[in-house]
């Protein structure tokens, strides 16, 4: 009897706590500051040019077009980009103010709820839409963003269905996800930090949604907050640590290194390619120098991982000596004889934290498929890394990467040919050319 009561008590407590959490996760009261009468496509014009301009900047900082634009499409914000998640493909939606296919019939409040709380008039959003970051956006920025989005050219384009298997296709499940992983709280400035730092934190955690790629996730896609910004693999790319570890993070980057990288797409230490090149091209290069400096200030303050540099592999190691040969023949013309790279064009290897990270999906992927440096207003070059899939075997690629990770002061674990083999398969990249005996 007592036992039964205790069980019921426990159940009651769980229900109350869960209910409270569910309420907290689903609480959208902060969005009530937004108007709920005028719809996006309504005739009432948005006349505040300054607000529209500020809103355009928020859209750039939040990199909305990165997802809400089909690759190669000139129809901005019309959606159609398939984001490959571990749970299936989620296709971005049309957020132009078109009444039938876009958000033309949404009110500002609908928009606020979708952006900040993942609750659209059509149901709960998947957290592929980073509302768990955008929840930090201020009311002012949201008002401005809404003003801007209403001025976007409406495009009639029906949303493509997601490709998610059971049970992930049940959107209501996201209520549970929100309960577990959604920190539904607005940005709070830290009074003991500078205005610069606070602006940086606001941008990194809010519009910039850096954690979406750079913070490790658990099995359900929730942030592992104890490893905040310490690097994560998404879509086959490893987004390296952008916290303070000197070996694999930004510990050895100056503030100027960080701001310059975000502005131009490169610095003396690294060149952005892959998804980060897109982020630089679409978003960070257009941010003000003050905002980029603020981001640098904040990132430099974030505590890094504990990954310590291991002993580098010996030069006599079989992988190392073979890798050295391969490096001289295939890599040194551009990456230079000491792995220095070439500023603005070719990434450096020596001292590059991303090269030494435990996650090396980006390295294997880049050698297999090639890559392209960010193309920015300040550096339109767009230098490229060719694909070596046709030329180098799985073992060759493993060896040359192992060499690069353990030379010129670098130190990191070896890369195994089997990893390259499985990447070659999952990326559907060709086999090397057969060499006749």
């Amino acid at each position: 009897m007592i036992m039964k009561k205790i069980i019921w008590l426990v159940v009651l407590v769980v229900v109350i706590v869960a209910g409270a959490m569910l309420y907290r996760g689903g609480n959208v009261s902060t969005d009530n500051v937004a108007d709920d009468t005028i719809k996006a496509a309504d005739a009432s014009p948005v006349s505040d040019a300054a607000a529209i301009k500020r809103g355009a900047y928020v859209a750039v900082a939040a990199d909305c077009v990165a997802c809400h634009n089909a690759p190669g499409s000139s129809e901005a914000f019309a959606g159609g980009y398939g984001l490959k998640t571990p749970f299936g493909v989620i296709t971005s939606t049309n957020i132009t103010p078109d009444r039938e296919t876009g958000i033309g019939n949404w009110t500002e409040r609908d928009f606020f709820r979708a952006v900040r709380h993942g609750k659209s008039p059509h149901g709960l959003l998947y957290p592929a839409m980073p509302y768990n970051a955008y929840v930090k956006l201020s009311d002012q920025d949201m008002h401005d963003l809404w003003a801007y989005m209403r001025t976007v050219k409406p495009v009639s384009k029906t949303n493509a269905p997601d490709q998610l298997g059971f049970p992930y296709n049940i959107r209501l499940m996201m209520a549970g996800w929100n309960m577990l992983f959604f920190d539904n709280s607005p940005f709070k400035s830290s009074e003991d930090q500078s205005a610069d730092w606070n602006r940086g934190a606001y941008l990194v955690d809010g519009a910039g949604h850096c954690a979406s790629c750079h913070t490790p996730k658990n099995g359900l896609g929730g942030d592992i907050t104890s490893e905040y910004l310490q690097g994560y693999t998404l879509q086959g790319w490893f987004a390296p640590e952008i916290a303070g570890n000197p070996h694999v993070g930004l510990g050895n980057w100056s503030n100027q290194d960080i701001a310059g990288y975000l502005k131009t797409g490169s610095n003396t230490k690294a060149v952005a390619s892959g998804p980060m090149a897109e982020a630089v091209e679409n978003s960070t290069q257009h941010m003000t120098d003050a905002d980029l400096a603020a981001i640098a200030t904040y990132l430099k303050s974030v505590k890094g991982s504990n990954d310590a540099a291991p002993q580098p592999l010996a030069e006599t190691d079989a992988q190392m000596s073979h890798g050295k040969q391969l490096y001289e023949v295939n890599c040194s013309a551009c990456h230079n004889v000491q792995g220095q790279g070439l500023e603005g064009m070719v990434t450096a290897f020596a001292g590059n934290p991303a090269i030494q990270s435990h996650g090396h999906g980006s390295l294997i992927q880049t050698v297999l498929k090639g890559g392209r440096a960010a193309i920015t207003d300040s550096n339109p070059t767009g230098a490229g890394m060719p694909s070596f899939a046709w030329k180098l075997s799985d073992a060759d690629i493993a060896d040359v990467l192992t060499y690069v990770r353990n030379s010129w002061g670098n130190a990191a674990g070896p890369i195994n040919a089997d990893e390259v083999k499985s990447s070659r398969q999952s990326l559907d990249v060709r086999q090397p050319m057969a060499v006749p005996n």
Partner: protein
Amino acid sequence: MANVRPKADVVIVGLGWAGSLMAEELTRAGLNVVALERGVWQDTATDFPPAVDTDELRWDARRGNLLPPSVTAVTFRNTSDEKALPTRDWSCFEFGWNTGGAGMHWAGMAWRFTPFDFTPYSTAVKRYGKKQFVDGLIVQDWGITYDELEPFYDRFERIAGVSGTAGNIKGQIQPKGNPFEGPRSRDYPLKALERTLLTDLFDQGASSLGYHPFAIPAGHTSAAYVNPLGVHMGPCTYCGYCLYYGCGNWSKASPNACVLPVVMKRDNFTLITQATVQRANLAEDGKTATGVTYIDEKGTQWEQPADIVVFSAFQMQNVRLLLLSKIGKPYNHATGEGVVGRGYCFQTVSGADLHFENENLNQFIGAGALGSQIDDFNGDNYDHTGLGFIGGAGLLVVQRGARPIGDGDHLPPGTPRWGSQWKAAWQHAFQNATFIFGQGTSYSHKDVYLDLDPEYKDSWGQPLIRMTFDYNENDRRSAQYLEDKAVGIGKAMGAKVVIGTNSAKAKFTPYDFASDHTIGGAVMGEDPKTSVLNKYQQVWDCPNVFVSGASSFPNNAGYNPTATIGALTLWTAKAIIEQYMKSPGPLVQAS
């Protein structure tokens, strides 16, 4: 016509150096530009990566980057009483193809012409009198001087990232440079490329004869570089894959590397590839172009209306487009009247083959413009009194990279054509065979010209361009003179075997690969009776048509044409922006 594109301010036909530089200038000035390119899009990162670029069979032996004769051939004959036949195989015509045009596959020698080359008529008459010209020779001034063009040469060198040693800065002769060059406003943006054993041997040999050797100005970056458009270039690695190749290291200057990344980002620039322009269309007045007609990759015909038409295709194609468009009066060989097709000429080449006894030339370390030259016998740098010709040649050695396939027949005379002795000789030659190249001036003649072939047509039914050409007496005399000089230098270099070469000794044939620098046919000048274009490369008879390229050269200099094409394009672009746009019409009044 059913298919009409939105009107552009400017339509550019051909996207090599001329078209790309024109597009950059005009879009930066805010004009809405549409460029039509017959080939496909090619960019540095995607199409020329170092991992696949070093393929002699594909790019050199099989000419993978050149306009295939199957797309457009040239018909050729030596004299007007012969029947011209099409060049059905690869020949000395190395026309540009795809974005970047010939600027993508060029070797990289980035020369300025001498001041004399722009005023050959007035200078030679003043110095020697008209008797110096052989019978029928066409010599005329360009209407522009070196000094006028100098700032644009300078701009081109900055955009291309040219490496060299100045010889004359504002009249002050500089050590180690070319003392004969025209005064330049400042030094090259980059120091000259590294020296090699071959250039040392040449420099010593030439110096011992009292000549003035210097490093060839190279469109290869000797160090990391950022050009004025903001494009980064990587230092040359001396891989030796330049001529016929794209450069994936951003080291060889090309429109693809240096200009197009910037232009392609601009909203007021549109590029349509695989667009074969057939002609410019004229308004009823016959003096105003309304745009161009082109055929897209599906074979559909389109009209691209524009206020300004720029022909910036390869030289031969510029002349052909003018003829097909009925712009300007075609040259009539019988009467000597007319201008389009007149003033055509090639390049007179002589030199020497050299075989050393036991050197290690290591020419596999190379670059298309890694070399030394003397200009002691170029242009009018020496006294021609009593020589019976004008002009001359730059005499050079170039370490452009080893070509295991291409150099298989570059062996001393008497070597067997196969077998173990051939192998041994070929191995020996790999380190010991080289050449002195005398890249000569050339002047047109009344008997050589371009016109439309009456019989042979391309796949669209349009007549091919017909070339009627042979060397003239001026060419033959200058070539012999320069051959002797080259042999002298070869001997002074210590070569065991020195064999003079002279392409003008025999009748011209397009299958002699001495030079691919075909020029003229739509020349600029001072008089509409003897030129198609005024000094701004604007058609006298059709002021909203501009033609840019080597087709504008009334005579060839003893150099490669690229930098002059670039400079003239920048000069013309400035005239369009600053003069024509303010007051459309002829920029020069015919006197």
